[in-house]
């Protein structure tokens, strides 16, 4: 008894932690009361005890058997003192939990598996009468683990219906737990002990894990298994309705896109809330569109000279256009093809292109600095008409242009004649 006492106390203490209804002190008190009562029984009625059971001759029996028979005798004949607050199940649990010392402390960490373990462990060495009590309590306990873990896995329960493709750990736990409760009454005792100890550890660990995971994976949207479904894990303490899940997915999509926009629109870092953000976005889009309008007006104003520099802009964005370049280009313009390269001599092509279009002398004047005016005009007259006759296909020219532009990169030189021919022809064709 003395040996069993601390073990029983230990075992009883831990369910007290879990159940929460019993305080440690009250359990201890009850246990002590019970033990005292048993001792009294033993001491007071030894003759009855020995008379009742002839096979037990003395105290040579091993401790566990002695306790066992104490309980049997107590159950059968003696007064069964109702422990305050404890039902019969607890009584047996406490006793046999002490006996099953192998199970005793290892598996009983915490968690709802506790009641489960008690119910299971009693099947180890319980005779039929106790087994009946155990099954009864086991059935009761089968309800309580559900209730215990339902607080944790309630979401996952309902989510199972809403989310049929995802296998949750809680589901995996609940089902084997229930199955094992039924199994325990039928299977071998020793085999069950190990299984249950493992499962109890697993269940307790899993229950803890579920609590941790549901709080950790708060916004886990995993597209797993089937591409058609978006699997959402409900957060802890939130509704698990299918509608609210879909709503949450939609909200998360919207907030993700708002974040992108926040990066894009300047000055939106301080603003939180969708309405303010939308205001900022609207203002920004409007300002951008106004800018485009303004710039297009400006370009329209500059449009007559648009083609003046058109070819020079192919190379880079910011092009240091200057009159000196134009002058150089003009002077060497007779040998046009040689100078047709992107980088600074691009103006040559632009000049040639320009000449095709600009028939007015004032434009020519504008273009050149020191070159003779007549030269470009003659060039224009002579070459353009030839070019018109030679180059017939608009598509071909454009194709040349584009292919040269995009494929060859910026710093490559065109096949010059082709370019000039097409350029001139295109310009002429526009004019005529």
């Amino acid at each position, binding site marked *: 008894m003395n040996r069993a006492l601390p073990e029983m106390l230990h075992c009883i203490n831990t369910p007290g932690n879990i159940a929460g209804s019993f305080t440690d002190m009250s359990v201890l008190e009850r246990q002590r009361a019970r033990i005292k009562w048993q001792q009294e029984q033993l001491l007071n009625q030894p003759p009855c005890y020995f008379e009742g059971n002839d096979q037990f001759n003395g105290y040579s029996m091993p401790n566990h058997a002695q306790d066992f028979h104490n309980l049997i005798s107590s159950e059968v004949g003696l007064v069964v003192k109702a422990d305050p607050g404890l039902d019969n199940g607890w009584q047996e649990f406490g006793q046999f939990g002490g006996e099953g010392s192998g199970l005793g402390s290892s598996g009983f960490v915490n968690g709802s598996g506790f009641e489960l373990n008690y119910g299971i462990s009693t099947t180890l060495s319980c005779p039929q009468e106790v087994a009946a009590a155990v099954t009864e309590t086991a059935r009761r306990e089968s309800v309580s683990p559900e209730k215990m873990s339902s607080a944790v896995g309630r979401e996952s329960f309902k989510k199972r219906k809403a989310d049929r493709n995802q296998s949750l750990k809680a589901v995996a736990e609940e089902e084997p737990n229930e199955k094992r409760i039924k199994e325990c009454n039928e299977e071998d005792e020793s085999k069950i002990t190990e299984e249950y100890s493992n499962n109890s550890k697993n269940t307790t660990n899993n229950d803890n894990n579920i609590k941790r995971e549901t709080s950790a994976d708060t916004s886990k949207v995993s597209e797993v298994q089937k591409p058609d479904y978006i699997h959402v894990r409900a957060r802890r303490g939130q509704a698990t309705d299918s509608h609210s899940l879909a709503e949450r997915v*939609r909200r998360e*999509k*919207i907030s993700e*896109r*708002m974040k*992108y*926009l926040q*990066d*894009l629109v300047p000055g939106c870092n301080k603003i939180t809330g*969708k*309405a303010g953000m*939308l*205001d900022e*976005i*609207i203002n920004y*889009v*409007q300002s*951008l*569109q106004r*800018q*485009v*309008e303004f*710039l*297009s*007006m*400006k*370009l*329209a*104003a*500059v*449009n007559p*000279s*648009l*083609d*003046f*520099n058109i070819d*020079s*802009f*192919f190379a880079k*964005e*910011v*092009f240091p*256009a*200057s*009159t000196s370049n*134009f002058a150089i280009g003009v002077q060497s313009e007779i040998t046009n093809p040689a100078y047709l390269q992107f980088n600074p001599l691009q103006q040559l092509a632009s000049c040639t292109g320009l000449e095709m279009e600009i028939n007015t002398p*004032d434009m020519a*004047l*504008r*273009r050149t600095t020191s070159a003779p005016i007549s030269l470009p005009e003659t060039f224009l007259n002579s070459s353009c008409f030839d070019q018109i006759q030679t180059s017939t296909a*608009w598509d071909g020219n*454009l*194709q040349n242009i*584009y*292919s040269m*532009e*995009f*494929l060859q990169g*910026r710093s490559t030189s065109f096949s010059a004649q082709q370019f000039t021919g097409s350029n001139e022809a295109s310009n002429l064709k*526009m004019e005529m």
Partner: protein
Amino acid sequence: MASTVISNPITNSNRATSRKKKKALQATSRDQSQNPNGATTQWKSESQQAAYSSKLLHALRQVRPSPAPRPGRAVREAADRVLAVTAKGRTRWSRAILTNRLKLKFMKNNRRQRVVATAVSRSKKPRVSVLRLRCKNLPAVQRKARVLGRLVPGCKKEPLPVILEEATDYIAALEMQVRAMSALAELLSISGSGSSGSS
């Protein structure tokens, strides 16, 4: 998209637009990213801007020197069209811009339809619907989402997440357009002033 453009009666700029689209699809290499983040970085790349500028130049060359009603509008529409072409039609707004232009060109002679088409393409806010929205006391977010939807071409009746995604891409594209056009204007003005100064 490209096929419908080609089959229609062709004006100069239309033909050029179709060809530009074909060449753009063939020649330009773009990032193949799906998410909005990738799209915005794509718009910021230099290659995009260069391609857009070149196409814009070609388009502007073909713009008639001074359309009667408003000179700037033709340029602006050309610029928008080129922007939509550069977008390669992956987004709603680009497709909407191109189809609107198409309608405009196709029904060019019909003044009434042109007004309607331009109204659609310009994304102006019709006053009636704004008032109706206010009267309905929609939630503020909803109201503003509708306003934004009208601003972005082709997104008038889309739900909010779609509008946000389109707006992301549209803002990036607009920024690139502004950059390109401002550079172009600057170059033109510099060169123009330079040449006029020299003469």
